[in-house]
């Protein structure tokens, strides 16, 4: 497919969407897919395919940083990846069955739900459910240092964790989003995983999740290689800079403002689905 948009503009879009997505902890696709479809008038599956490749690049880079910090729970990640990859493959295959309008509708509704979750969690607390001393970490728990103290945690409600991971995978495959906005709150609030471990483990998983559907888009011919390369090369530094900045930024008002922006983008996507 010949691409009229200059490479530098696509790379710049990748940098900007990666930066904002990482700042908010949502991933770059949340803004990348709407911009590529609404501003550059690209087919939504082409935009989703470019977003998936950007997610793989960003997640691979972030995983190495998180692993060196020792907060990734690799066993938990592998178990939850069973659910995210099945969801991702299913989402990738399902996207071919939906029309462009239906995909816009699903994307718009998902963004609106994300905005609500983000607004509700803007003053989030880190819930640390410490494991019973007699029971220990269990197979999927671990130890983490928070505020100078070492906490022992164990996974609770594993069916819920697997269900949330499956939904996150399906959304990733269908819409090109990371899915962390679903997994992280569920793992922290209901499953007893400390927020730093939940965030790092979720980030560790999303590259594999995105790969499970990226192959499907690639094989189907939905991937524009020029577009994908330019956007991915832009998203990578943007996301890494955003992740670094987000450690210092806890501005509740900014998150609420961006939740409002997400609602506006969701409304625009839903408008496209008419």
């Amino acid at each position, binding site marked *: 497919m010949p691409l009229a948009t200059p490479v530098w503009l696509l790379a710049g879009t990748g940098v900007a969407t990666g930066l904002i997505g990482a700042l908010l902890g949502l991933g770059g696709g949340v803004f990348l897919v709407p911009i590529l479809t609404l501003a550059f008038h690209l087919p939504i599956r082409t935009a989703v395919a470019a977003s998936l490749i950007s997610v793989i690049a960003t997640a691979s880079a972030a995983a190495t940083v998180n692993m060196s910090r020792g907060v990734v729970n690799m066993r938990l990640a592998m*178990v939850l990846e*069973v659910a995210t990859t099945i969801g991702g493959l299913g989402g990738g295959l399902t996207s071919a069955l939906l029309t462009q309008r239906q995909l816009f509708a699903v994307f718009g509704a998902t963004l609106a739900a994300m905005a609500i979750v983000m607004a509700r969690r803007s003053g989030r607390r880190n819930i640390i459910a410490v494991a019973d001393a007699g029971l220990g970490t269990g197979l999927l728990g671990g130890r983490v240092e928070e505020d100078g103290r070492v906490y022992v945690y164990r996974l609770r409600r594993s069916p819920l964790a697997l269900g949330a991971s499956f939904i996150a995978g399906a959304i990733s495959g269908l819409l090109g989003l990371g899915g962390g906005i679903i997994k992280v709150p569920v793992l922290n609030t209901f499953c007893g995983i400390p927020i730093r471990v939940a965030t790092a483990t979720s980030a560790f998983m999303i590259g*594999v999740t*995105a*790969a499970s559907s990226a192959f499907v888009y690639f094989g189907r011919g939905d991937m524009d290689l020029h577009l994908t*390369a330019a956007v991915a090369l832009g998203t990578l530094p943007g996301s890494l800079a955003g992740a670094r900045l987000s450690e210092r930024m806890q501005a509740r008002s900014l998150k609420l403002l961006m939740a409002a922006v997400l609602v506006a983008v969701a409304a625009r996507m839903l408008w496209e689905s008419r």
Partner: protein
Amino acid sequence: MKDFVALDRAVETVLTAGLAASALLLLAGLVGGSGSALRAGTVILMFTPVARVAVVATGMLARRDWAFGMVSLWVLGVLATSVAVAFHR
């Protein structure tokens, strides 16, 4: 404990190598207008997480952690299905 550190290192190495190789190829493809470099860079990037899962599976099985080794192989199986769907159309 030593095993875990070695596995972490191996995973980091695979991710870094895959990312570096694909980034170089994608950049070369964009600058030089080479479609084959773009294709190679994209395919390497897509296979990087697959290689990571293969390394974890190998590491788990090597230290006789059968349960998590099988879980890793299951994930690898789902990814292999995805690859099969993509390249057998």
